[in-house]
């Protein structure tokens, strides 16, 4: 059995205790909502897009340490980035969170530095928690689609 330290890395607990970019954004920022039916977690992602950049992002909602820290790290990673780069960060993160080989090789070409986000890699050893880690990211993707539609 993988140890708890694989899952609860210090940086994850740090983001859980002091989440970055908490709050809401007024329209025209796009608001999308994600649910984890397994544990009842809810998350709202507010996304402001200007001139092809994610100019601001805010997160609200409740959830476990993994979902909350993942959302917090995500917000820090995408804020101020061009949309194309944000999309490739999302792809790389999601491929890190998958167990299947195919999607991994596909995304490896992209060479995006995930930085702190790599701390979440240990989540893959706890398959039940993968949905917690990807909740914010799937919600962000919806927001990106809406903002760029």
């Amino acid at each position, binding site marked *: *059995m993988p140890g*708890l330290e694989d899952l609860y890395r210090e940086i994850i607990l740090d983001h859980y205790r002091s989440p970055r970019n908490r709050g809401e954004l007024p329209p025209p920022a796009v608001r999308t909502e994600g649910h984890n039916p*397994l*544990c009842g*977690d*809810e998350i709202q992602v507010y996304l402001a897009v200007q001139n092809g950049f994610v100019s601001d992002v805010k997160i609200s909602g409740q*959830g*476990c*340490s993994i979902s909350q820290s993942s959302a917090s790290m995500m917000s820090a990673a995408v804020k101020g980035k061009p949309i194309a780069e944000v999309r490739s960060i999302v792809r790389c993160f999601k491929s890190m969170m998958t167990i299947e080989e195919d999607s991994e090789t596909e995304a490896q070409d992209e060479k995006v530095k995930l930085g702190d986000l790599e701390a979440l890699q240990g989540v893959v050893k706890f398959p039940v928690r993968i949905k917690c880690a990807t909740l914010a990211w799937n919600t962000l993707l919806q927001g990106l689609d809406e903002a760029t539609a």
Partner: protein
Amino acid sequence: MSTDFIKVRQDFPVLSRVINGKTLVYLDSANTSQKPRVVIDAMTAFLQHDYAPINRSGYQMASEATDLYEGARIAVAKFINAPNANEVIFTKNATEALNLIVRTWGLANLKRGDIVVLTHMEHHANMVPWHMLVAEIGIELRFIPITPDGQLDLSTLDELLIDAKVLSFTSMSNVLGTITPAKLLCDAAHRAGAIAIVDGCQSVPHMVTDIQDMGADFLAFSSHKMCGPSGLGVLWGRQQLLESMPPYMGGGNMIADVRLDGFTCAELPAKYEAGTPPITEAIGLGAAVAYLNDVGMVNVQNHETEMASYAIDQLTKRLGDDIVIHGPTNPELRGATLSFALKNIHPHDVSQILDQSNVCVRAGHHCAKPLMRLLGVNATVRASFYLYNNHQDADSLCDALEQAREFFSV
């Protein structure tokens, strides 16, 4: 007669499983129960020696299989003191049993504006099927509220039941453990001219069920929560109601005759058992019922009242203000299903730490999201005890919770 619960525990092979040097502490029986060896053996024996179709073929094996299947029905009928075994319908699960009532009796007897009364503590399985009728035919729902200590607030019961056609309620909350006054509720429903439907999923496995004394019109429960296999639920209904209702699914076994211009339904219980049923599972449930009868349901309930009392006592002593237990604190008013919050640590994180000690609990909304909203949480940790649990399990739970508290201390 007292039962040796040390021996009971040994009847469940899975409980001796060791993972990473730690024995299993199974506290998720409100979710699904473990199986005693007699159930596993009965199903294995049937599959190895006796497996054959029921109600169809005429050879000896088929006739024996039919007798075993129908024997299970008789055992289940006796277990709940049903007047007639033909009133016991085997379904896929309790959810299907509840849906069957809504889709047959409900659609045949309810129209726009008709009132159905539920409680605020229902499982989604006794709420969503009614929501579907709200959307389809415009029935109206009312909800019995809950007191701060997690019991049904019956102060406005008679008002809520005015003009109601149905009162459908759980006999034990799957989140709070609250035992509801089923007989009183059935009586009140009948006085108001409504039928009474009881979701017995959490109570039937844990206490004596006497359907005639309770006075319900329908009762739904599941096999897998009462030491039987999954894939099987039970619907009991009053014969006259079941006979008056339209069929649920059409197909083989449920017909007396089929012509090009229509069909005639079979008699009960076949009318509601279209297709090949879960034969092996029904035989497993028959064995589970025999097992529970041997232990004695009064003994089971007493054991669990004592377990709830001990667990609440220990949790409160060892975790103090860091733990909030939802639902009644008086063990006489509840089953041994304990939902709680540990400080502000998310239930999912708590269960993860507990899993390191092989302590199995459920974290989540327990298919009761309206109740979660009322409690002001989006999830709880739930530890649920059954006849095979002991004080050591409660102690292991407390040990692991102390570790979780330490791990997440800021």
